[in-house]
Every structure is written in structure tokens, then in C-alpha cells.
């Protein structure tokens, strides 16, 4: 069990700590501008790891 009791919406959370505020579901409606970098164009010229990319918006 975690020592920290991080508040989440006023609820005491003992067993889980969420580390991010994900936007993937929201991006189903708002994404697709295409201004971001091509994922294979950067440091990984022999693989494709889109998860390492950032949104430019």
C-alpha cells in the first residue's frame, strides 16, 4: 500500500496513483492537424515509435 494518500477528486486513494492526465479519448474529436513531426524522421531511423512523439498543438 502507498504511504502517500494522494487526493483525487476528494477521494482518499490508497492503492493507486495515477501519473498522467491522458488526452487520447479527447483527441478522437480534436486531433488530426498533421503538423507534428514524422515519427521515423527523428532519432529512430530504423523503427517507428509514435508513442515517443509529442503533439505540436
Amino acid at each position, binding site marked *: 500500500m502507498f504511504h502517500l494518500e494522494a487526493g483525487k477528486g476528494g477521494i482518499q486513494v490508497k492503492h493507486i496513483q495515477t501519473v498522467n492526465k491522458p488526452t487520447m479519448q479527447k483527441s478522437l474529436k480534436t486531433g488530426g492537424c498533421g503538423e507534428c513531426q514524422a515519427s521515423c524522421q527523428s532519432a529512430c531511423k530504423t*523503427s517507428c515509435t509514435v508513442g515517443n*512523439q509529442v503533439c505540436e498543438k
Partner: protein
Amino acid sequence: MKAKIHKFEQNGTYILLDVNSGAVHVIDKMIYDLMDTFTGENDEETVHAWAHAYPEADIREALGELHTLMEQQELFAPDIDVPPTFRQHGLVKSLCLMVAQDCNLRCKYCFGDGGSYGQERAVMTPDVGRAAIDFLIEKSGPRKHCEVDFFGGEPLMNMKTVKAVTEYARKKEQETGKRFKLTLTTNGMLLTDENIQWLNDHDFSLVLSLDGRKEVNDAMRPDVGGHGTYDRIVRNFRRCIESRKGGNYDYRGVYTYLRGTYTHENLDFTKDVLSMHDAGFDILSLEPVVLKDSPYAITEDDLPRVYAEYDRLVDAYMERRRAGHGFWFFHFNMDLSNGPCVAKRLSGCGAGHEYFAVAENGDLYPCHQFVGREGYRLGSLSEGVTRPELSQYFRESHVLNKEKCRDCWARFFCSGGCHANADLFHGDIRQPYEIGCAIQKKRLECAILVQALQTLEANEKQ
């Protein structure tokens, strides 16, 4: 069945990823166990299944927390289908120019046959390079940000064309309002002071190739005469990095990466990453070699060793960051809160629909690794795209259309892996290369863990 969650334990930390929202939760051992049973709607079954291991009150308290996550759509979030934001047809926004299909090194694992890609050794003329810029301007439509990577072989062997194309692209920026992000990937042999200054003056991002330790690099990356290259390359890279200090050089904008490749011969590759850091470089990438029927290839038998090595790399990475002298490792970078949109995650690398390679003669291929694979020639700068159906096939070869990808927990992070590797091993871009998938999934777990640890440690400091 489609994976909705993924859980893993690494280095004593338990992580739960919600696949369809991207939420990452650090959990305790009890939640980790409960998630073997809990589906979101079977509380009593879960209590009964784990009553032998945990007090009932604790299980019910934990289930309460899980239901809270579900209400916030951060656990068992709805399945994702192709959204309307994913354009039916791709807009080309990135080109890889093979400015020199020739090279001054003979790396033993080269996918480009020593730079020639199985063709005659040749360099791109300035006219072909300028035509590529015109093609990109036309095909990118309303998109403002475009990318051009000068690649090879070794692109610095053809500075005449690099300079002519750059001058033309910068002129066209003024006329069209486009912005061209320019990148050059080099082995460093010709990275003279004059070339460094010119690349800096023209805002080039650089990808500098080195394989880590001197003995590893020299065994794999000899020059044409078979001699080691480490000392010459590192001397040039140090001068290059030194000249860029204090400028606008970071990993998002104009960046300077050192990238390397590890093979079956150096599965202790943490030493290579740390060697590059110790040599004075702090934005790093190291990737597994992809080879078929080669003594240097990573095999299935190597995987346990590879996994253990990534665990070691995480430890070393965190240790150096905590001590205040960390480094960036590309494959551990991940923006968990503001990552790519779903449309981008489906587009993947964009090969064949948003991203093309231009061979020295102006022929178009889905990406640099397909150059010379004639079945994948898409057209040419003079003819345009003559095989739109093949381009569209690449567009539609996303994770939701690939049998092995659509159920995988990693589908929205890896975006289905590399098409060229899938073709190399299976002759089919919709059948992913299994060893690549296995390593990719391990790397993603490491990246998620690193991001989670950094967030928790930052919270504790506050």
C-alpha cells in the same frame, strides 16, 4: 480479444496502463493481483477469488478506487475505432532525400548495401533535389510544417546538392509560407569545421551515428579500407556538439542526436549508451539491429538477455538523473499527458502516404528502407505517384487493420511497427516482425516506468 489494459512489474514497481485512454497508474501488489480477475462488473467474483490472500475490507476498498477510475474513463475506457479526424487519404509532409547512394563506411549491418541500396553508386543532382522540394510543396496541401531529411549513404559526400536544395527550400519558404524542418543523418567522417558551421547557420537538426564503445563501434563501423573510425568520428562529433552549446538546440526543436545500433555481438548495450554519455553526449538513441540470416541478428534466444539489459539501462538512466547528471534517451521519452492524437497514432511513421523517400534518380519509395525494393516503387518526381493504390494500402495498414496489432496492448504506442521490417521478414507489410514487436513492447514498458517514476519522485519533492 482486444487488450483493454496492460499491467507489468518492473524493478519492484507495479504499473497498470489503460490502453484506450493512455492513463498510467502506479498500483500496489493487491490491485495488480485483482486485475487478473476484475473486469469492471464482477466485484463479488473478484472478492471471492482473492479472499484467500487479502482481507475482504481491503479488497472492497481497492475495488472502490477502481470504480472511481472507470467513472473518470481512466480504466476500461471505450474501444477506439478510426476517428473522422483520420483523413481518408494522406498528405505528404516529409521526404527523405537519398542525396548520396554511396558511403565512406562499410558498416557490417547496413540495410543499404554500403549506401548503394543494391543499385549503382550515385549521387543526387541539385535539379532532382529541387524538384523534390516542389513535389513536397504541392503534395503537402494546406500543411505548414514540412520535413526534409538528407540521408544516404553518407549525405556529406554530396554537399553540393545539400546546399543547393537548402537554399531553394529556404527561398520557397518565403514564397509559400511553408516551414521546412531540415535534418541530416551523418556518420561524421566529413563533419569538418566548415560543414559544421554551415549546418549550424542553416538550422539543421543532426542525427550523428555512433555505436557506443570504441571496440563495438570499430568492429561494426569500419571505413572502406577496414580501419576503425571511432577516434576520428568522436573528435568531429565533440567539435560539432561544442559549437551548438547555448543555441536553440533541444530535443523538440533543432536537435542533435547521437544514434547507434546494437547487435547480437553487444547485448550488454547499456555499456554503449553510458559510453556515449561519458564521451560527452547527452541526447542519445540506440536501436536493435534488424537483419535476417546474419550472425549479427538478434534472435528469439537473445530476448531474455535483451529484456534484462533494458532493466539495467532503466536503473542506470534513473541513477544518473537522480544524481543530477542525466541524459535523454529517445526511447524512454514519452509525453503521457500530451502525446500524439489518435489520428497520428494510426498514421504511424507515415511511410508511403505522408512520408516518401526520393532515390538519387528521383524515384519515389515508401521510405528510405524500401529504396531498391522494386515492387514498392511508387512513381517518380517527374511522373508523380503512379501507384496510388499502393500508397493507399500503406495508409490503411494501420493497427486497427492488422490482425496481430488490433488486439495488442501496445497498438497506440508503436503504431504497428516498421513496414520495411515486416516486408523483410514476411513479404507483407501487415504482418509485423515478431522480434521487433517483443523488443518494442519491453522498451515501452521501460519508458512508461521511467515517466511514472519521474512523476512520483517530483510529487514527493513537492
